[in-house]
């Protein structure tokens, strides 16, 4: 009796197993010792406008974007780092200049910027953040809100010297 290796059942089972494994995040690359640098996220740079001005608040506010900026390796907080933020909000689209703003980290490497409420666009309620000042390698992040009703979102940067 011949036993077929590639049966429909085998294909389905293997495919499903591969899907489930990749979805659980069990497959991760080996990590170096210390605090690993943050890698840019897919689509993070979409609708980026270089040189967003440092502002007290984007638009009329109501939503808080916050996070930390640390150095790769020892994880020391980085003060005075410029983080650019933009998103699709109740006041404008991602590509609109008025949806973009920047802020600086404090002595503890913490940044916090008020902006209009983020609303879902292109299927997910998400924000874009960029570190693009040159001292460290450029990083673009694209964090997604757990729920469209959230009124705050966090993103963490670990930067590597350029």
């Amino acid at each position, binding site marked *: 009796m011949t036993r077929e290796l590639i049966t429909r059942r085998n294909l389905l089972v293997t495919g499903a197993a591969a899907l489930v494994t990749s979805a659980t995040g069990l497959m991760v690359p080996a990590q170096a010792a210390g605090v690993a640098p943050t890698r840019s996220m897919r689509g*993070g*740079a979409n*609708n980026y406008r270089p040189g967003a001005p440092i502002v007290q608040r984007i638009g009329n506010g109501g939503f808080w974007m916050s996070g930390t900026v640390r150095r790769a390796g020892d994880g020391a907080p980085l003060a005075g780092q410029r983080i650019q933020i933009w998103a699709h909000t109740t006041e404008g689209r991602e590509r609109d200049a008025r949806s973009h703003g920047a802020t600086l980290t404090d002595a503890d490497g913490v940044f916090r910027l008020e902006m209009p409420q983020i609303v879902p*666009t*292109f299927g997910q309620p998400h924000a874009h953040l960029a570190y693009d000042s040159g001292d460290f390698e450029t990083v673009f992040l694209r964090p997604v809100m757990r729920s*469209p009703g959230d009124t705050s979102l966090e993103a963490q940067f670990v930067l590597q010297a350029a």
Partner: protein
Amino acid sequence: MADWPKHPFLCVAIWAVLALLLVVPIGFAAGSPLLQWRVGIYILAGFSGVAAMSLLLLQPLLAGGYLPGVSSAQARRLHRWIGCSLVVLVIVHVGGLWVTSPPDVVDALLFRSPTVFSYFGVIAMWAVFASALLVTLRTRLSFALWGWQQIHTGLAVVIVIGSVVHALLIVGTMEMITKSLLCLAVVIALLVILVKRRRWGRQSHMIRRR
């Protein structure tokens, strides 16, 4: 299908349920609060997708001859017209999204998007195009392609799975319950016709053996 007129109540019930499944999700999407923060072309792109999802439900029903009061000739013609409409709606959907945010659509088309649903959407899009091309080749050029119907059905499976996963994973204008019901209906309609095809296949196989 000849039996349908014998059950007028069933006919009315089927059409009523179908009409609800087609109209209610679009109605809920039209009332989405997200629309107030979107511009015209983005709204058009979104609703092209919603309309395509609704029309998709009719395709297996027409192919299987399940719609009461529709002759098989009418069903075939409607199936073709809706197929053409799906191609147009998909082009408007993707084109409108492209105008709204080019980098997001380029990422999706190149399979490097951060959103899983776009992979399913793009695969379904190519399956819709392939399906239309296959049928055009067959009808217009009398292209005698062996097993075209199996290929067409295979593409239909890809289109339905791709579209349903695409729609369900999206946080968009569609309301979750009506969206899920529409998706469930599309999957059931496809499964019903697949089972029917399988039975036909067995029968024709038996006939050939005899």
